[in-house]
């Protein structure tokens, strides 16, 4: 991780533009506005909402989550770990006759194999989700927006990020107002 990125995360870097943000009071309005803004040719968009808004991914171009692929790998890894452990313990390292049962067998390995597969998948989806999202982090430029605290309450925010090639402070503010956003602000971060 380079120093610039680290500074960014803790909010220590020089002030630069984060983007233009606006607020809506209903999810449907956010989705419609997001779609219109995207049709204008913007590509670096984000939205913030108190609950997942359906249709927003499609409207502002959020790609489908890759988390499933990560998790399935860990599911297989968990099952393999369990089988390897049971086989190594019972048939290699500590061979002990108990009730005449075989040293290794798939039938009695099922419960532990299943449980470890579940455990590994759970950790993969939990840690994986936060990692993909770049969380936890202490600071984000969007927190400077005057309505940021309402994104967890009753406002649906739309962002045109400053690193969008089509971004232009005045025009973007105008566009944002044009699609019906309230409290439009230029946010620094």
């Amino acid at each position, binding site marked *: 991780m380079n120093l610039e990125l680290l500074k960014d995360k803790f909010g220590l870097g020089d002030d630069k533009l984060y983007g233009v943000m606006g607020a809506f009071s*209903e999810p449907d309005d956010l989705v419609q506005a997001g779609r219109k803004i995207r049709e204008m040719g913007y590509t670096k968009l984000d*939205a913030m909402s108190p609950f*997942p808004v359906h249709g*927003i991914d499609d409207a502002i171009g959020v790609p489908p989550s890759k*988390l499933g692929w990560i998790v399935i790998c860990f599911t297989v890894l968990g099952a393999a770990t369990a089988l390897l452990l*049971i086989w190594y313990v019972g048939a290699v390292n500590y061979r002990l006759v*108990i009730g005449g049962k075989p040293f290794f067998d798939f039938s009695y390995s099922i419960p532990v194999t299943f449980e*470890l597969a*579940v455990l590994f998948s759970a950790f993969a989806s939990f840690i994986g989700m936060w990692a993909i999202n770049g969380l936890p982090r202490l600071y984000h430029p969007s927190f400077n927006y005057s309505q940021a605290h309402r994104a967890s309450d009753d406002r649906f925010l739309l962002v045109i990020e400053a690193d969008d090639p089509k971004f232009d402070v005045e025009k973007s503010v105008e566009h944002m107002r044009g699609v019906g956003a309230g409290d439009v602000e230029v946010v620094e971060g």
Partner: protein
Amino acid sequence: MSAVLQDPALMEVNPPLVRSTNYHDLTEQISAIVEGDVIKTPTKYWITLGVTASITGLLGAMLGYLLVTGIGVWGNNRPVGWAWDITNFVFWIGIGHAGTLISAILFLFRQKWRTSINRSAEAMTLFAVMCAGIFPLFHTGRPWRAYWLFPIPNTDLNLWQNFRSPLIWDVFAVSTYFTVSALFWFTGLVPDLATLRDRSTTRVKQVVFGLLSLGWRGSARHWNNYEKAYLILAAISTPLVLSVHSIVSFDFATSVVPGWHTTIFPPYFVAGAIFSGFACVMTLLLIARWTLNLQNLITMKHLENMNKIILVTGSVVSYAYACEFFIAWYSGNIYERFTFWNRAFGPYWWAAWSMYTCNLIIPQLYWFKKMRNNLWVMFIISITTNIGMWFERFVIIATSLTRDFLPSSWGYFHPTYVDMCTFAGTIGLFLTLFLVFARFLPMIAISEVKGVLAVEKHTFKGEEVATR
């Protein structure tokens, strides 16, 4: 639009799950309990907490006494080596199951009514599993050696676990269950912790909720991955919850003890677990709904739906009882036949008939809509169900062990006061943890309830357009 929501005719046909028309109002209603500024925490809350905390102290005293004296302070003795401790273990684990069922299975079935109750049900799962864990842990006699249960290479033992034994399967099942439930619960909490962070008025709250909410900002990209993670956790919790009580039942089913050695145990235990768990959620929710005035969020519809599930699972349990008796007779095995005769008419007849009354007869009242909607009836049934389910585990364990193959080694189990106080103590611990949770964390999933409200607004909007 709010006029549509309040239109009594429409409410009749399709009663809303959330009695509110406004996102901010929901945030206020739920956060106010946690913040304690606007709605002052009632004195009765602190008194109740004091009582339950004292009972938890009793648990500490009993466990301390056991540690310095030995496992003999419990009534476990030949022929009943698994007595109250394993009964209590199965009882508590079973209670936990409803939480996962509500949070995972009902989520997969898109049952929107779960959103008002899932958070508290999940918390209940965690606390119940904690209480459950105490019993086998202390039954080992030397709980400070608990790490011997896990396959960790260690120099003081130089042994490996026996993976051919269902007891080690249980270790894996219960510890996985606890971990996954905790992760699921915390994942669900993060957006609500962010809400509390954004509403914080003091520096301490800002820092605490700020750290706990991990910098959540509700970005669409985040929600996208978050929903995926939530779906995956629900999808893996569903078979997990079914596996946990199945594996608990293997502890019994893989033995040769008459009354235990039956293949019906896994589904029978799972149904019983959900039955008792829903009853326990009901008890806690009724108390919370009453003391914290949550009538707008936990509506009669939620309660009625839960009562229906109690009726279904209670009937499955009743069927399992009947099936067990039938198979005992039909198998022609004299030991099986004796065990079941002995259950109903032997020295533990009182326990068996308490269980039949509570689990088989009383929940059948829920066939009547009036009963499903009566708060007093549901409160009483939620309590009797858990009494019945405790007796079920006790009957299975005690009647089978006191009289098995050799009449010369028959016996009778007497609990000691330590047994009783330890069990009472876990109830105290459970209630204390729940009370603390209900006061200091959002008891209702704010973001999920808002999602339901958004869908309802959308639906009602559609109807409005269609009819006018």
